[in-house]
């Protein structure tokens, strides 16, 4: 009945909402069709104009027509109104219309609530730390608008900012506790979110030396590794991902269906390297692990071909801890290879690589049974003949192995690894191709190893009885610097064909140097954000709980963690409030007076001394209601005033206090007598 009289009384805060919501929606501009942006901008601009000129919102009929049109457009654009992009588009359009038709406070509040939803949909497309900071700004603005809507009067912007900021700040501890403690389960609950994820680069399950490897031009990060203790030398770091045994004359392919085998027991702890890796999504199941794996995360297995597979595809960034024994090759100490495995590792299509076979036959004639000599012969061939290492080799036709070995003689790791394996198999030595990562850049800031997709590498393993699968890297023969220093080592050789990001050696201008320095910083921040925040998953949560002696899958543990977390928080809040409480310094006599008042008020609340009441007046009032206490109360008032107003020595003062104390004791704690003999006695 007493609504504010101002014409826009109910729309207070709409102006802020008209700022906060576009800010929240801004990151979507890059991910939505332009007409959505145009529509939203138009609707908000119209509303702002209506507000500024004091006009009413469009009628319900107009809004209905507009809503149907927008829904139809969305449907036409995406073919659906569900899913990430279509859903987000619809949400944005809905909010714009909600703002346009805003009639009362409730409409603004709904639009602002949906604004929070808009912020969260941003993360479908972008999860960088920049977006996180931006989200805080957007959330703060939305909250400020909500506060203004409910304030009932105009609140100065600075005050509003402080209030919203404080609300956000106070919510941060809750956010952190819940983030770590809230029970995480492995998604998805419905649908197949990975299908909607945009294509990711990663190692392919097949290797075809004839194709151009775009991967080697890709400077995006594939894997980041932190070592627990010492960092093994770069040349010893082979990160195996895929093991390819099957060859059809042109193409090597990996087999994901090999049986699971037990991890070898590392007999010498000194050789074991512990590390934690953060892997970008590959949409495949392989896990790159440092040669040779001796400990793996729970959700991954070692397969018979020494390939590590996770139990499901990697659709989002994951983090895993593992350990490696740098020395013990697979099958070391075994006298012979399993016959079936041996057959597979020797298989060569009959028509494949005739010239190579002829060449190898000559080596056999020279060296007899000496497998090692054959290997050396092959490596010597790569090192001495006019072979060269290039990331832009000529295309290969017909028989790729022969073409490469005898004609083009130019290629990168895949060519050399493939050709070497063919040569070995032709010589009767079991051989296979391993792909993974090698090299990488050591980030001194943050102390981690950063492996880019361009650091992908292919090498070989050959079986030697008694020694097991021995690693041979033919690329090391042709381009040792590639192995010693990583890809960047090639820069001094052939500048033209090395991607720009690799030319980080000498001859850089200060601008380029600054760019690379900045880039390193950026990667460091990104990495920390990704490894500490984005990589937190059920596995990490289990580890965190285990470190606290709790079990993440036991609801009692979760309750304990929540209780301890929030209990601690409450304690902190309480301590803060308690320490900041307004303190009254009372004199000893005042404290006695307070105790007396409390004692009397216990029987009758109304008899408590009011702050404004002089002691005399109060005792007189109490004496009327409690004649039984007349004597001590009168005496108390007298002594109180004496010590309060008379000029006294400290001794006299303490005497007074003693008397007050004894008078206080004369007032009983219990209930007053219920009978009324007092009247007669008085």
């Amino acid at each position, binding site marked *: 009945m*007493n609504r504010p009289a101002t014409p826009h009384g109910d729309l207070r805060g709409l102006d802020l909402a008209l700022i906060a919501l576009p800010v929240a929606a801004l990151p979507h501009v890059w991910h939505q069709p332009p007409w959505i942006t145009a529509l939203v901008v138009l609707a908000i601009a119209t509303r702002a104009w209506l507000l500024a000129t004091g006009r009413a919102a469009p009628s319900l009929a107009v809004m209905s027509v507009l809503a149907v049109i927008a829904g139809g457009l969305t449907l036409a654009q995406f073919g659906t109104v569900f899913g990430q992009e279509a859903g987000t588009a619809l949400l944005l359009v809905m909010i714009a219309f909600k703002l346009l038709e805003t009639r009362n406070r409730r409409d603004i*509040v709904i639009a602002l*609530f949906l604004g929070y939803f808009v912020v969260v949909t941003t*993360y479908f497309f972008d999860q960088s730390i920049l977006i996180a900071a931006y989200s805080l700004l957007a959330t703060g603005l939305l909250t400020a608008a909500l506060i203004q809507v*409910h304030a009932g009067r105009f609140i100065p912007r600075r005050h509003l900012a402080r209030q919203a900021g404080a609300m956000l700040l106070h919510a941060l501890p809750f956010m952190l506790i819940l983030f770590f403690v809230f029970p995480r389960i492995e998604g998805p609950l419905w649908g197949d979110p990975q299908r909607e994820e945009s294509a990711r680069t990663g190692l392919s399950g097949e290797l075809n030396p004839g194709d151009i490897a775009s991967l080697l031009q890709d400077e995006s990060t594939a894997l980041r590794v932190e070592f627990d203790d010492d960092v093994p030398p770069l040349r010893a770091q082979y990160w195996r991902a895929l093991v390819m045994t099957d060859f059809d004359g042109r193409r090597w392919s990996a087999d994901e269906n090999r049986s699971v085998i037990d991890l070898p027991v590392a007999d010498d702890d000194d050789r074991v390297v512990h590390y934690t890796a953060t892997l970008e999504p590959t949409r495949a199941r392989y896990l790159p692990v440092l040669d040779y794996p001796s400990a793996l995360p729970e959700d991954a297995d070692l397969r018979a071909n020494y390939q590590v597979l996770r139990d499901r595809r990697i659709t989002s960034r994951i983090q895993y801890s593992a350990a490696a024994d740098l020395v013990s090759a697979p099958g070391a100490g075994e006298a012979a290879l399993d016959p079936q495995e041996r057959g597979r590792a020797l298989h060569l299509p009959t028509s494949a690589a005739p010239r190579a076979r002829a060449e190898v036959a000559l080596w056999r004639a020279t060296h007899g049974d000496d497998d090692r000599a054959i290997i050396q012969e092959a490596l010597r061939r790569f090192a001495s003949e006019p072979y060269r290492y290039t990331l832009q080799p000529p295309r290969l036709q017909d028989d790729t192995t022969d073409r490469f070995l005898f004609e083009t003689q130019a290629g990168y790791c895949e060519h050399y690894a493939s050709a070497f394996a063919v040569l070995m198999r032709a010589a009767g030595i079991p051989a296979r191709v391993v792909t993974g990562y090698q090299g990488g850049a050591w980030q001194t800031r943050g102390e981690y190893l950063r492996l880019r997709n361009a650091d992908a590498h292919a090498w070989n393993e050959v079986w030697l009885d008694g020694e097991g699968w021995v690693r041979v890297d033919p690329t090391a023969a042709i381009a040792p610097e590639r192995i010693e220093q990583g890809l960047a080592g090639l820069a001094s050789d052939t500048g033209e064909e090395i991607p720009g990001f690799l030319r980080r050696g000498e001859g850089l201008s200060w601008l380029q140097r600054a760019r690379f320095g900045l880039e390193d910083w950026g990667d460091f921040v990104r990495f920390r954000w990704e490894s500490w925040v984005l990589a937190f998953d059920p596995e990490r949560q289990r580890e965190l709980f285990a470190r606290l002696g709790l079990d993440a899958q036991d609801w009692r543990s979760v309750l304990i963690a929540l209780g301890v977390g929030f209990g601690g928080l409450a304690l902190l809040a309480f301590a803060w409030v308690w320490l900041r409480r307004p303190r009254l310094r009372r004199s000893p006599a005042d404290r006695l007076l307070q105790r007396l008042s409390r004692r009397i008020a216990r029987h009758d609340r109304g008899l408590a001394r009011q702050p404004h009441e002089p002691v005399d007046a109060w005792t007189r009032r109490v004496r009327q209601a409690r004649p039984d206490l007349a004597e001590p109360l009168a005496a108390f008032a007298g002594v109180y005033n004496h010590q309060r107003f008379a000029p006294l020595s400290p001794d006299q003062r303490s005497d007074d206090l003693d008397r007050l104390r004894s008078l206080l004791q004369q007032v009983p704690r219990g209930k007053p007598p219920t009978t009324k003999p007092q009247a007669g006695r008085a």
Partner: protein
Amino acid sequence: MRPDSVTQPGPARRRARLRDDAIRWITRRHAQDGEQARLGRDRIYILPTRAGYTLLGIILVMLLGSINYSNNMAFLLTFLLVGIGHNAMWYTHRNLLGLQVSTLPVPPVFAGQPVALPLRLTETAGRAREAVVLRIGGNATAPFPVPARGTHSARLDLPGLARGIYRLPRQRLDTRYPLGILEAWSWLTLNPEIVVYPAPIDPGAATGGTGEDDPHTRDRREGDAPDQIRPYRPGDPPGRIVWKAFARSGKLYVREAAGGQGDRLWLEWDAMPATDTETRLSMLCHQVLAAHSEGRTYGLRLPDQTLDPAQGVTQRDHCLQALARFRADVVELDPEPAT
């Protein structure tokens, strides 16, 4: 006597009564407030509003999405909102905590006129308060702020009442600040007395007479002698001061109707041309006002009470009070449920 209660249909009435009983039961441990109430922790209640449940739903959807897409940033934002929502409880509660509400004497009104209930809110904790609303039944003040360590004077308008003496029903002080997702409230039992005078009815107009010649007012003038001038005595109505005399002499004189002390007007219950109590009271009320505005000396005779003749504001108020209280019990207003 309860004009606001007759409009309610049966079931709504029953619900209101049930609700009233429930609130009475909840607040049974609180003492009556009297003129002043301080909102301590023991009497502030808080529950989510409809908007609060809406936000809760949105947060749940966000949580499901976060789980489905294993999106840690979505988890972070969801939990940030949980934190904000949780803290809103604290903020909203503190927006009322420690406030002191006191009633000031309610200015009497005539029957049917809206009652303006003056209140004072005092803040002592050093925190500015925003958007506090005081409600009685379906009537509410506009949301008002209370400055830190300051006071705010609020006024709650209640609809017009019939003649009589009333006590306020339970009041409700509430706030949804800052986010509107929670409402904190406290029930108050401040009980200032509301005095409602009868609505004046001109007895002359009621009987079709002209007033002056009306037999019921025949005793209004007891003599036709010209006015006399006498020195001013404290309490004389300012309208009767002879300003010309003051300008000449610098002393205050008042004009007095001829007859002096004998010029007394008796307003008689029995003389009113009506049979029912309320109409008679209304007519007497009119007569009191008329006599007062003319500066007359008048007395009031009611069946159970007689007020001796006097003049001035005090006399008027005494008479009006007597009329308001005539055979009237104190009525506690109906605590109509808040809408």
